[in-house]
């Protein structure tokens, strides 16, 4: 559905060139919800703009909905819906007038039926005749999402769909995305919200100019150190430490007074053996806790690694 090979974008402003996206290669299947994470200026919006044919890549190739970027741009634009970073609505026109305009540009057949469907789904039907200038930020965002869907595109790009919204609106928008996912659409979401990416997305890509990592949320959490297990003991002796370090499935040992935090390869499988080994070494076990790494920790670690990597280059 979405395929990119070595996609790059270089901006040249006032004679200075700046590489916004560096050889991005990725493949997104039909029906997949893909989360695009990365700090400010990572190149997320630039990538979306390239895939939506709004800007041309400086290098590399891409295919969206089966059409190549560059030569079939109008076909691609008909097959995608986009929520741009800023909603971009005509403030003087009403919600219905805004949507009618875009529906006609997209060649929607049943304009008023589609408008009613999406305004109702997003809770804006009552406000349909009001000028958009009088709308709150959340209402505008929802209206812009409705606009992206009027022509029932199989592929949807959402650039920060919940950015700057209150918790209630965030909930509405997230539920709505869940619902769209049920309809088999391919959804590409740029977000800063790790929790959101974790909950909504099948796979997550972390971008910092280059694509640092791409994996399922669960895979990402494990990718760095695997899962960690904390064991609290009556006391930690050298013998215990040596015993633990000798186990093949333990990747890292961190000691803090009476507790050991261990990176275990596969906790459910390895923990029984770990505990037997501890008991054999004379440990008095008080507590055993599993703690999964949060996606946030993984995210920060990956970014830190990437920064170090680029410094070494």
């Amino acid at each position, binding site marked *: 559905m979405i395929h990119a090979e070595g996609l790059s974008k270089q*901006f040249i402003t006032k004679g200075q060139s700046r590489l916004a996206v560096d050889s991005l290669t990725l493949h997104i299947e039909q029906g997949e919800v893909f989360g695009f994470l990365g700090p400010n200026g990572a190149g997320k919006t630039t990538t979306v*703009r390239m895939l*939506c*044919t*709004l*800007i*041309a890549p400086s290098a590399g190739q891409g295919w969206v909905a089966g059409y190549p970027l560059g030569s079939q741009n*109008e*076909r691609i*634009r*008909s097959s*995608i819906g*986009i929520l*741009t970073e*800023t*909603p*971009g*609505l*005509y*403030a*003087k*026109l009403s919600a219905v*007038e805004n949507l009618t*305009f*875009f529906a*006609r*540009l*997209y*060649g929607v057949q049943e304009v008023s039926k589609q408008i009613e469907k999406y305004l109702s789904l997003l809770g804006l039907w009552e406000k349909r005749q009001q*000028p958009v200038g009088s709308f709150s930020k959340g209402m505008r965002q929802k209206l*812009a999402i409705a*606009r992206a869907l009027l022509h029932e595109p199989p592929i949807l790009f959402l650039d920060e769909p919940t950015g700057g919204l209150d918790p209630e609106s965030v909930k509405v928008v997230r539920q709505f995305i869940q619902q769209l996912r049920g309809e088999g659409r391919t959804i590409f979401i740029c977000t800063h919200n790790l929790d959101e990416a974790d909950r909504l997305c099948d796979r997550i890509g972390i971008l910092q100019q280059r694509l640092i990592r791409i994996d399922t949320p669960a895979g990402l959490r494990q990718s760095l150190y695997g899962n960690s297990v904390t064991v609290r003991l009556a006391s930690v002796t050298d013998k215990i430490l040596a015993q633990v370090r000798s186990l093949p499935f333990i990747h890292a040992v961190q000691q803090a007074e009476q507790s050991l935090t261990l990176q275990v390869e596969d906790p459910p499988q390895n923990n029984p053996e770990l505990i037997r080994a501890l008991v054999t070494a004379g440990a008095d076990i008080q507590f055993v806790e599993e703690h999964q790494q949060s996606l946030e920790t993984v995210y920060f670690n990956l970014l830190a690694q990437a920064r170090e990597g680029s410094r070494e280059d």
Partner: protein
Amino acid sequence: MRISRRRVGAVVQKEWMEFRQSKSILWAMSVLPIILVLGIIGLNATLAQHAGSSPDDLGEIDIPAALSGLSPLAVFLVQLNDQMLVTLLTIAVALPAYIAASSIISEKQTKTLEPLLATPTSTLELLLGKALGAISPAVITTWLAYGLILVGLSVVTIPTVAAYAYRPAWLAAMLLLCPLMALLSVLCGLCISSRVNDPRVAQQIMAFLLLPLIFLGTGTVGGWLYISLPLVLLGVLILAMVDSGLFWLTVWLFRREVILTRWQ
């Protein structure tokens, strides 16, 4: 290249809906023509009452050959009316320029350009829609004002003078020259505004477009220039060529990506 009439129509309609909400455009569209219509009818009504007397002091100015059989007062009135009608044409130039210049720039400023460019609308369709959207209110206003002037003149002024206001030259000027001039101004507006980010700069540059009309107006009053059919048709021919060239230049200059990304 296929042009979708539906999409062009959608753009035109959207432009119209936006004017409807724009007080400054509505004012410009109504006040100027009303002043002109009232001025031209009022002047004729006042002056035509002296048709019997023949004021000698009007004999000073040049009289074009086409007006040679008329009384000095009638000549004066025809020249006055011609000048007023030229002024009416300036509305058809100034108003679309104003609308077109604001049009693309305001889409940049309000960030509506990005979702707009993400639709399957081609550059040609977009610019055609914008051009027609900006021309139509001005041209329709001009025609309406011209119609009112003709009706008013037939009532208040000397019949021969009134007839000069709808001589073939003026009919051709209103029907052909006026839309072409409006198009010229719109195209300049679109061309400039896709490159410039401040609508005022675009509007100032376009004030130059009014120079030929000022020349025409001065010539008419001075009597050294007469608005004849060949002159108008020559103008139509030249403008048609300039307009079509400029249209392709505008489409060519409209680099979607540059317009979208230079605005930060």
